[in-house]
Every structure is written in C-alpha cells, then in structure tokens.
C-alpha cells in the first residue's frame, strides 16, 4: 500500500515537472522562431570586434568571441584570487581584534563589521570606484616613495600597475568579504571550549602563544566551512565588476549578448563557467580541509 502511494506521488511530481519544462521549452522555441534567431553556437568563432582594456593574454578585437570569453574568465579568476587573499588577511585581523583584550580595537572592529555588512556591496563598489579612486584630485600620491603610487588611473605597487577598475573591485570585494570572514573567525574561535582557555592560562602561557598553539588549531575545523562559503560568495559577487567597468566573465557575456542578441546561448556559457568555478573553489577548500583535519588529528 505504502510503496504504491509513494510511487504515485513521485510519478505525479515527475509528470508535473516534465509538463512545465516542456511548456517552457515550447514557448522558447516559438519565441525564437518568431525572432528568427534559432539556437546555435557557431557565432562563438566569429571575431568579437570589441576592445578589452585588460587582458592577461594577448587579445585584439579581431579575435573570436570564444577567446574574449576566455580572457574574461581569466580576468575573473585574477580578481577573485587576489580578493580572496586580501579579504582573508583583513578579515582575520578584524576577527582577532573583535575578541582581543584591547577595548578600542574591539570597538573599531565591531563598527567596521556593522557598517560593512549592513550596506549593499554594489554601493560600496561604486564608492570605491567613483569616490576613492576616480575622485583623487591630486595627480599622484606616493605615500611610500617609489614603492606605491596612487592616482585616479589606478595603483602602481612595486612596479606592477593595477587599473582603476581592478583596484576598486579588488578593494570593494575584499573589504566587503572581510567583514563576513571576521565573523566566521570570531565564531570559530568562540566555538572552542572555554576550558581550553583556562587550561593554557593556568599553565602560565602567554595569550598570544595560547591563541596560536591551542585555540586556533582547534578553531580551524569550525572556521573552514564558513570560509569556503564566503569564498564562493566572493566569486559570485565578483560579477558586480560590470558596475565599475572591469571586464570579467559576466561583463564580457553582457557585451556579447548586446552585440549578437543571443541571450540563451550566452547564459548557458555563463552558467557552465560558474559551475566550473564553484567546483574549483569547493575542491580546493576540500583539500585544505582534509589537510587541517589530518594535521590536527581531531
């Protein structure tokens, strides 16, 4: 009796889903016929004929759409990678400030987290781009001589030039994500049993040594999953690059859709790029996670 009931329920659900999907596909086909576009990917190999300001590999407008998309993908990876490092660094600092014993640092950290987390990332990115970078009035600011010079054209750090678009995206993403990472770090450290703190204190160990040797190794297993999901968010949020004019995978997709009028195909490419990117980050973190679990032997 029970089995047949379950089977019927599943069959009904499956039928409904198939029905809805086929209606949608039918509508899509009719619409595509009406617009006369059809569905194919051969346009990928036609020349893109738009210029890209930033390309880690050689690129010219006569290259194909496919190559332009690949360059966009590399640009995405580049900004994600550096933001990931920078946000982890800033986030760890603020996370530790938040639980430290200096009350002023605690206050500063709490304020930072409250402001950053309660305002939209897009607004912050626009602020970094239009106010912090493009708003620089003086031609060049060099706080550290030749090592670092900042102008409204971007940043020159140790001879490496970063464009204004890349810089503002990097700073915006890193600052935004760091506030979340700070909370992940704080949560992880708070998840360690209070007895462990008392235990190392009663042995006369310094706070910094205890934190480094006793607390953080035990907090890591709790921190890593949270960190992974923040990294995935960071990767997804990097698509807001379009708001500051940085040519990431999404921005290039957008340009291509405007040029070719093929949103369905471009959307499928975008979807696949992100499935791949997510797999990349999750697997990387999985490796890290297993390394930590093995080394802490918990």
């Amino acid at each position, binding site marked *: 009796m029970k089995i047949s009931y379950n089977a019927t329920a599943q069959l009904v659900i*499956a039928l409904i889903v198939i029905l809805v999907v086929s209606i949608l596909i039918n509508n899509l086909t009719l619409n595509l016929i009406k617009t006369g576009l059809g569905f194919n990917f051969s346009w990928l190999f036609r020349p893109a004929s738009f210029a890209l300001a930033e390309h880690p590999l050689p690129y010219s407008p006569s290259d194909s759409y496919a190559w332009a998309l690949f360059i966009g993908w590399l640009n995405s990876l580049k900004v994600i990678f550096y933001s990931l490092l920078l946000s982890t660094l800033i986030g760890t600092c603020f996370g530790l400030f938040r639980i430290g014993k200096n009350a002023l640092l605690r206050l500063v950290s709490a304020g930072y987290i409250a402001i950053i987390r309660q*305002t*939209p990332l897009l*607004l912050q990115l626009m602020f970094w781009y239009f106010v912090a970078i493009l708003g620089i009035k003086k031609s060049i600011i060099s706080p550290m001589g030749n090592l670092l010079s900042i102008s409204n054209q971007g940043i020159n750090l140790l001879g490496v030039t970063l464009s204004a678009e890349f810089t503002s995206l990097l700073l915006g993403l890193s600052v935004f994500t760091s506030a979340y990472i700070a909370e992940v770090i704080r949560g992880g450290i708070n998840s360690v049993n209070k007895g462990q703190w008392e235990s190392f204190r009663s042995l006369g160990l310094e706070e910094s040594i205890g934190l480094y040797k006793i607390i953080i190794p035990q907090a890591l297993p709790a921190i890593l999953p949270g960190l992974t999901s923040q990294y995935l968010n960071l990767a997804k949020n990097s698509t807001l690059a379009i708001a500051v004019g940085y040519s990431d995978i*999404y921005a290039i997709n957008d340009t291509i859709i405007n040029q070719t009028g093929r949103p369905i195909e471009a959307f499928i490419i975008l979807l696949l790029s992100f499935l791949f990117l997510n797999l990349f980050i999750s697997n990387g973190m999985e490796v890290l996670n297993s390394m930590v679990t093995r080394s802490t032997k918990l």
Partner: protein
Amino acid sequence: MGNSYNYIKYIKRVAFSNALDSIISLTILSFGISALVNLFKWLVFSANWSVVSLNLPLYLFGSFPGDQLWRPGLWISLFAIFSFITLWGPRWSWLRKSLPFLWVSYAPLGIFLLAGGFGLSAVESQNWGGLTLTILLTSCSAIVSLPLGIALALGRQSTLPVIKNLSSIYIDTMRSLPLIAVLFFGQLLIPLFLPVGLEINRVSRAIIAFTLFVSAYIAEDVRGGLQSMPKTQKEAGEVLGLHPFQITYLIILPQALRIALPSLTNQAVGLLQNTSLMAILGLVELLGVGRSILANPEFIGRYIEVYIWLAAIYWIVCTVMALIARHLEQQMTLDKKDF
C-alpha cells in the same frame, strides 16, 4: 570611595596593559578622533546636501505621480509604524497575536497601494521607484520565497528519490550562480519562456528572479535547522501515533525554523541589499535613483553626498530588520519558557 581609581585601572587593563597595547590605543584614539572631527566638519560645513534635500521625494517614491504620493507614503510609513510597534509597542496580547498577520499582509497591501485598482487609479510599474520599490522588491520576494524554500528543504530531506533529486539539482544549480546572472535571466530571458503575446512587467520579473534565487538559499538554511533536530523528536512523535505529515508540520518544522531564524534573518538583510543590483538592470530602486540623480548635470560629481545618504538609508533599514529578527528570536525563546 575608590571608584575613579577603579575606572583608571579598568581603562589601563583594557587599553594600556603593555607598551604595544598603549601604542595601538593611542594610535586609534588620535586617528579616530581626527577622523571623526574631519567627518563631522565635512558633513556639516563642506558637504552640499542640496543633492539630497531637493530630491527627497525621488529617493523615497521614484517618479510616482505627484497627486498620488500619499499611497507609497502611507505604505512606507506603515513599515515604520509596524517596526516600532513590534520593537517597542505595548505588550497587549491581541496586538502581539495580530502582528504576524499585519506583516504578512504588508507585501500584498503594497502592491495594491502602488498598482491601484479597487477604487484607486492605476499607476504603471515604470513609475514605481526609490525606497518604495526597494522595500516592495524585498517584501514580495521574501514572502513568496519563504514557503518555497521550506518546500525545497523538505523535498531535499525526502525519502522519495525523484523529489529529493529534483530539489537537490535545483538548489545546487541556483546556489552556484551569481545573483546578477539570475536577475539578468529574469529581465531578458523570462519573456522568451512565456507564451507568445503574454508580457509581465519588469518589477514582477525581478520579483520572480529574486524568489527563484533566494528560495534556494532559504532551503539550505532550513535544511540546516532540520538536520540539527535530534532523531528523538521524530521518534517521540511516532510513539504518539502521529502521521508523518503531522510530525513534520507540528513537531519538526517549527523547531527547525526557530534554529534557522538567525540565518534566515541574514538572508532577508542580504535580499534587501541585493535589490540594489536592479539599478544596473534597469529599475530605479533606491540605488537606481541615486545613479539617475548623479547623471543629472545639475548634480554632477556629488558622489560622496549621494553615496553616504544612500548608505545611511540602507543601513537603517537593514538594522531595523535585524532588530526585528532578534526580537522574534527572543519572543520564540520566551514562548518556549512559558510551557
């Protein structure tokens, strides 16, 4: 007697316990104070707030027809009034019991007030904008995606493979996509999936896209709550002879939702912030209004004033939402103690 002496010792302990600590504290104090003083000076003397004061109705209501402004005005005021009553209002039990219904009816009421009909003149969705549109997008998406997300979470926990797999595929795919891609899908691709000749407006399409996206995240939060439930609760229900559906709806789900509440709050706050993405996809919600004002030659270059003003509004609304959620959390723990 030794009170001031103790304060000095307290300050010494929390900020000046050793040389490094003292250097850090003094640096923060000097930088912090000078930053605050400069910020205050700038806010009061240097900033030109006309870009805000001259456009106040735009920020709040977009280009809603001037003679009908009372409608979004009333709706926004209700948000403030409901929030105030929830947080600081009297503790009359009839009022407390009706609050959930007030909040649930808030989104439909908004659509009615903005769109018109039933005696109100119709206003096209192109004229909706500003904070009103931001809150409309948030409340409508939230109210639809919550039940959808719960259903997906239960689906993913289901023992029936078809339901379980369909839910999992949907949730995982949606969560791997950037929101802007989903919103883009909503604006450009949804029309292609509709029957030829049928059109729905941009606002509805945005709400559909947000709902599709957020429900996948809500589903995972609810699943987290479901998974943290001890098995004994289910067994206790079975021992009482309850039907599996009854166990889920009467015992498991209420507790799981209470556990998931903090992360659901984060989703709601995130949703409100993310409605700003519609500014680059053609809607003039709060951030979109800011962008269009900055494009006006009269106010060109007034970036800082506009961004600070927008940040302040977003911050206040998000903080109010977080406060209400915390209130709800406390309410739920109180209810538990009553039994």
